[in-house]
Structures are given as C-alpha cells and as structure tokens.
C-alpha cells in the first residue's frame, strides 16, 4: 500500500519542506504524517500556494476603491461596471512549463486563467497574453515563440474567447526562463458572483470536468520512484490541455450557475484537488471528508497521493445545496462531462480522506492554513543609476533611427503573433490588437471594456520603484488613450530567486512603486499572481511585474484608436517635450546600451494629462490618440501613420533633436484633432502642457521638412517578425 511509504528526512526534503517547516508539521499533526499528508502540507506550503516570500509585501498594495466588489483573495478580482454588471479578471503565469513544452505549457496557462474567471460566475470575454522571450538570436528563441504563440492561440481560439491584446519582448535575461503571463477578463451579473467559501455542514462536495490522471505531480522523485517502476513514463511534468473540454466546462458551469444549486465553487488549479478542497473548507471554517474512490480517474491504480496532487486540467470542485445533485448532474450530463459527488462538508475542521474503505489522511485545516509559513526575507535596495543627459547619447539621423526602431525585434509589428489569435470571436471586438488598449463592447449594451498589459522590465531593473510606478502608469495611460476610465489592475510579479537579497529588493521596491501609482491614479490591485525563482544557473530574469489593466467606456462608440482617420488634421502633443533617453529603446536598440535612470513618473502630471485627454475623447474632439512610450514621439507618430496609411508632417524644435523625437518622458500623448485651437485653449485652461506639432496628410512621415515614405516604414515594420519566424 503506497500510503505506507516511510516518511524519511530525505523524502521531507524532496517535498521542499525545510527542517523548521517540518517541525511545524509534526506539531500540527501530533504524529509523523503519512506520505499523502506530507504531500498535502508540501503543496499547501509551497511558494506557489502560500506566497510565503511575497505575502508581506503584497499586503501593502492598495486594493480598495468604491467600485471594487472583490479584491485579492478570491480566484479573481471583481469590479463594478454599473447596470448590475461586473468585470472579473486576473493574470497568471505559466513560465516554467512553457519553457519545457511551449505549446502545451502556454495552452494550459490560458486554460488555467480562464477557469479562475468563470469559476466566479463570469463568462470570459477577452484574453490577453504577456510574453517574454530570450534574445532573438538565441538558438532556442524561435522555437519557443512558435510554440507559445501556437499554444495560446490553440487554446483560446477553440474555447471561443477572443485574444485581444498582450505584449511580446525579447531580452537575453529570459534565455533560460521565458515568461508566459495570461490574463482573462469575464463579465458577470453582480448578483450572480460565485465565491469559494464553503458553507453548510452536510452539503455535498462535487467534482466535475475531466478525469484525473497522473499529470504534473511534482512530488519527490524518490517517493515517486517507489510508487512504480516506470515512474518517469507515468509522471509527465507538463500537462496537456483539452480546450474542447474547457469549452464544455464553461458552458456547463454557467448553465448551472443560472440556477440556485451552487453554494461555492473553485477551480482545480495548482495542487489540484488538495488546494481547492482545502481552500474552500478553510474559508468556510469547516471540515471536509472526501471519498477518493469516487474521484473520476483516467488511469488505474492511482494512489491517494497521486489523486490529491494531480494537476490534471479542466476540472472544478463545487459545494452544492442539499438535494441539488440531480439538477447539477443533468447539466453536466448534457455537456458530457464527468460528474461525481465525492464528499461532504463536516463540522470537524479536519480534512479526512478515504480510499478503499480506509482513512488515508486526516489533517486539521485551520492550523495548517494558519501556520503556513510567511517570511520576511532580507532585501537590499537596488543601486539606482544616475540620470543620463541627452548629450551623452549619440545622435543618429532620425530616418535611419526610426526605421531601425520600428523594424527591429522590440519595435516591430506584432501582427505575426495576433493574427494567430482569433481576436474577433464573440462579435464584440471594437478595437482590435495593435493599438494602445483593446476595446470590446459589453455584449448587448452601449458600453465597452478596455484592456492592456504593460511593464518595461529594463526600467524596473534600473530602478524598481520608478519602474513599478511606470508599469502601472503606462497601463493607466493605455486605457486612457482609447477613452476608457481605468478601473483596476491585476498583476503578475515575475522575479528571480527571492532568497537573494538583491532580488527580494527588486520585489519590495517594485511593490512600493506600484502602490504609489495605484494610489495616485485610483487604480487598485484586485488580483494577481507571483512567480519567483525565475532563473537558470544563477542568472535571474529582469524583474518583470506585468500589469494587466482594465477600464470602462460608458459609450463604446466614442473610443478612438491610434490610426489617423483623415488628412489635414492637427497633431497635438499633450505633455512636455522629449528629454529623457536613459533606458530608452533608442539607446538600447540602436546602441545596445542599458544605461541611466528610467524616465521618472510624475504621478500628478500623469493624472492631470490623462484626465484631460480622456475628457477630450469623450467630447468627441479627438479622432486618433496614442500614448508615447517605447521610442517616444516619433515612434508613436509613425505607428499612427502606418496604422492608417495617412502620413504626417511634424515640426519639432529645440536642441537635442534625438531626445525630442525619441525621449521616453512619461505622461504624454499624441492626438489628431480637427480643431487644434480649441484643444490648445482647453489645455491651457486645464494647466496641461500642449503643443501643436504638425498635421496629418500625404504618404510620408516628415520632420522639419525631411521625409520618409510611409511605404518604406511599413515594410520595415511588418517585415521583421515574419522574416524572423520563416
């Protein structure tokens, strides 16, 4: 009997529990745990489930606003959209699996985040993905890009949720550690939101979805060796996703949620049945008793340990109202999904697992949850690089510089990526990928949702406080640029090894910068995810706190895109002139230098400028809008021109033309407007710096009389990705 595998110090260590943690296990149990119990402690106290290194700092993030219905702590965050509707969203990483098996790793990442959202009663309406790969010339990169993009698309396209946005970046720090962060946004009625807190002693605990197999059991190699001869063969560490089953699961869950049968529901994500049952009971202050013989399994001879720790995909756990089993079963039968009553809620406060008629695990829930380790890891502040003066950066002829930026790996069009994603399914995509934020109509209404994902890891590496601030500000700005009111963010904190004080310092400082920006911009954090230990051979990734932002448009038809809509319109720059080239794309892409401080973020100016721009858009006074970010003014102007096929002529004055054109100073927007005088007057009245820079028209982009044909720019912009992937 496998449960009789002896728990030796080696096995404890293999389960990732430190000696002091194991001491706490012994105290809580009052005896030596058996292998199944040890496995449960191990996953519940893992970094992934317990957030032991990050919790202290996550708690400092602002999470409240009048429109926040539910902040961090549930499967996803919930914000009020008015009219009885809510947006539910979250971002999650699938970094490691995607490096090993890019297609399935990325696909199951999408599947997992979808479940976090529909488990709360929301119909998923949009997906985003933030991807970071190693250097373009690293031998593994192309294969990883191909697999990850195909996997994200393969899953999202099949479930029929549009993938409307995201990011792709290349940097050598990700050579051995790519990042795949997936975000889902769903829509629900505010009176039909489902939570994971179990209630009602005696209520049935129900398993639905796919069968359980031996997928992704991260148990000790030694312990597993004893489970079977061909353990390698039986323990694939990467799960295979089944998007068709996920689609059925979405429909079945939403159908059942329309009735009053469900008390609580929770997806089975990381640590599968263990964490889902544990968290539901723990939140409700109850106990749970499960009969593992009732769990639908896909393989024979699965042990209690394997069933509890399996990470098979496309499964959910629910607590039903008494007597509703029949109603629920009928729904799942209709969708041809497994359905099994596997247990019952108890008042014992214990988790009791039975298999083959015997108790195979019996542990106290509350003490285990309460005693979950929480560390205050040592950290040191990062060394801040000094400001870099514009004249310390070489000036290059702007046409060459511009072509290199918009035609290089970091500035080129991502069309190759998003054309592999069905970004129109569901028939509500108003702004397709390629702009600042995606916009979807809230089905059946006049309103819209905007969504974006942002972070500049080079900024964060140079100064984690400013970089953290900037990531939040940029997300806020991108939402503003389409005319949306930014509501809240989800974050995905991707960092190296937190046991190194300088990495922990990056984490702490990024949280600090994010908090400042969230407060100043009324843009709270409602959900998120932490992924640590992203390093290979002691080489950590750039600190990457990915920010997923969501905003609301009261009238979706008033949203604007980046494409110019007509010739002869005025171009107005909101915000000051470009001055800052430290850590800019210009410096990095053209000269291979990552130097200087990142551009400082003046949050008050950010807010003032953004609120002003949003007001203009809502008043119908703006025909195209783009925020200035990577590559500054000229890259923004070029993108607006390329998106429309309409050129522009700019007059840009001042010394250090390269900084004027390519500086990445924050809080800025480029607008195309019909009535420049009125806009400039309004800006002056609002105390917002604004300047008329030129006019749209023609088939070239011209600066101070020198022109580059749009066709050439566009050719360079569209060529890099397909050529690289060919």
């Amino acid at each position, binding site marked *: 009997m496998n449960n009789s595998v002896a728990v030796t110090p080696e096995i404890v260590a293999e389960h990732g529990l430190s000696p002091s943690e194991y001491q706490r296990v012994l105290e809580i149990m009052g005896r030596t745990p058996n292998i199944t119990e040890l496995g449960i402690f191990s996953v519940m106290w893992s970094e992934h489930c317990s957030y032991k290194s990050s919790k202290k700092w996550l708690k400092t993030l602002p999470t409240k606003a009048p429109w926040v219905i539910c902040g961090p702590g549930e499967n996803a965050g919930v914000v009020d959209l008015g009219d009885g509707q809510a947006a539910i969203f979250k971002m999650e990483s699938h970094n490691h699996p995607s490096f090993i098996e890019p297609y399935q790793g990325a696909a199951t990442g999408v599947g997992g985040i979808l479940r976090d959202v529909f488990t709360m009663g929301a119909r998923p309406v949009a997906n985003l993905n933030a991807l970071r790969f190693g250097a373009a010339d690293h031998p593994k990169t192309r294969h990883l890009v191909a697999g990850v993009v195909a996997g994200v698309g393969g899953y999202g396209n099949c479930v029929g949720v549009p993938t409307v946005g995201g990011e792709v970046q290349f940097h050598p720090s990700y050579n051995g550690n790519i990042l795949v962060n997936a975000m889902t946004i769903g829509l629900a009625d505010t009176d039909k939101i489902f939570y994971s807190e179990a209630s009602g002693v005696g209520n049935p605990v129900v398993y639905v979805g796919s069968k359980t197999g*031996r997928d992704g059991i991260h148990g000790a190699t030694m312990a597993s060796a004893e489970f079977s001869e061909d353990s390698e*063969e039986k323990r*694939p560490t*990467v799960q*295979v*996703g089944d998007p*068709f*089953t996920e689609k059925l699961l979405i429909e079945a869950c939403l159908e059942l949620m329309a009735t009053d049968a469900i008390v609580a529901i929770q997806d089975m994500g990381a640590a599968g049945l263990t964490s889902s049952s544990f968290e539901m009971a723990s939140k409700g202050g109850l106990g749970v008793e499960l009969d593992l013989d009732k769990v639908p399994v896909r393989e024979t001879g699965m042990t209690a340990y394997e069933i509890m720790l399996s990470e098979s995909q496309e499964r959910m756990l629910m607590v039903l109202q008494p007597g509703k089993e029949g109603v629920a079963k009928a729904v799942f039968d209709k969708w*041809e999904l497994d359905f099994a009553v596997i247990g019952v809620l108890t008042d014992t406060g214990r988790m009791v697992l039975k298999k083959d008629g015997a108790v195979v695990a019996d542990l106290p829930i509350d003490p285990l949850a309460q005693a979950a380790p929480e560390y205050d890891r040592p950290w040191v502040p990062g060394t801040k690089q000094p400001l870099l003066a514009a004249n310390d950066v070489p000036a290059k002829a702007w046409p060459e510089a511009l072509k290199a930026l918009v035609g290089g790996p970091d500035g080129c069009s991502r069309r190759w990526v998003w054309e592999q994603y069905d970004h129109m399914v569901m028939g509500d995509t108003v702004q397709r990928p390629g702009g600042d934020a995606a916009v979807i109509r809230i089905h059946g209404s006049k309103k819209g949702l905007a969504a974006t994902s942002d972070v500049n890891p080079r900024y964060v590496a140079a100064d984690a406080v400013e970089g953290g601030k900037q990531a939040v500000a940029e997300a806020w700005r991108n939402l503003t640029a389409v005319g949306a009111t930014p509501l809240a963010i989800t974050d995905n904190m991707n960092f190296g090894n937190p046991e190194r004080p300088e990495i922990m310092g990056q984490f702490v400082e990024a949280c600090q910068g994010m908090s400042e920006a969230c407060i100043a911009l009324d843009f709270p954090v409602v959900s998120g995810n932490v992924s640590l230990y992203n390093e290979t051979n002691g080489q950590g990734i750039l600190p990457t706190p990915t920010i997923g932002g969501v905003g609301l448009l009261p009238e979706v038809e008033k949203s604007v895109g980046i494409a110019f809509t007509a010739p002869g319109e005025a171009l107005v720059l909101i915000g000051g002139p470009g001055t800052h080239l430290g850590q800019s794309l210009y410096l990095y892409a053209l000269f291979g230098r990552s130097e200087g401080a990142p551009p400082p973020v003046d949050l008050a100016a950010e807010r003032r400028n953004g609120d002003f721009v949003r007001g203009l858009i809502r008043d119908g006074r703006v025909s195209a809008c783009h925020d200035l970010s990577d590559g500054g003014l000229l890259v923004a102007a070029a993108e607006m021109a390329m998106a429309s096929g309409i050129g522009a002529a700019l007059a840009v004055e001042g010394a250090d033309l390269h900084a004027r054109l390519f500086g990445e100073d924050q809080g800025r927007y480029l607008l195309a407007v019909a009535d420049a005088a009125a806009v400039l007057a309004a800006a002056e009245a609002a105390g917002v710096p604004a300047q008329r820079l030129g006019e749209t028209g023609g088939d070239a982009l011209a600066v101070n009389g020198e022109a580059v044909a749009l066709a050439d720019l566009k050719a360079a912009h569209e060529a890099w990705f397909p050529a690289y992937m060919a």
Partner: protein
Amino acid sequence: MKAKVHVTLKAGVLDPQGKAVHHALEALGFAGINGVRQGKFIELDLAETDREKARPMVEDACRKLLANTVIENFAIDFEG
C-alpha cells in the same frame, strides 16, 4: 530508403484527440472499443540506403524536432 517514424504520447499523458475519437466512434455506434490513442506518423524519404548509418540521424531528428520527449515517445522503422 524510407524511415517511418511513429510519434506517440507517453502513457499517462492526456490524449484529447484520442479521447474525442473514441467518443465519436461510440456515438457512431461502434462498440467494444476500450480506448483510442492518436499519434503522428512521419515518413522520411532518405538518400541514405544503409540503415545503420541512417538511424542516428533520424533519432537525432526525432529528438530535436519530430517529438518532444517531455510528453512523447518515438519509434523508427526502415523500409526499402
């Protein structure tokens, strides 16, 4: 000479395709099927005619491209 490569999912790895085919066959009224697994079958037409010389190259191709050994196994036969 032809190299015939079978790439199959390792035992224990979920096979959504096989599952779907199984389900469909049952729906069509085919009974007595306990399970279905679906894999790939790749035929390489090689200039090389010596099996022993070809094998290491085909194995290398399987490991590098045709199969992901994290979740898949491969088997190679020669013909002709």
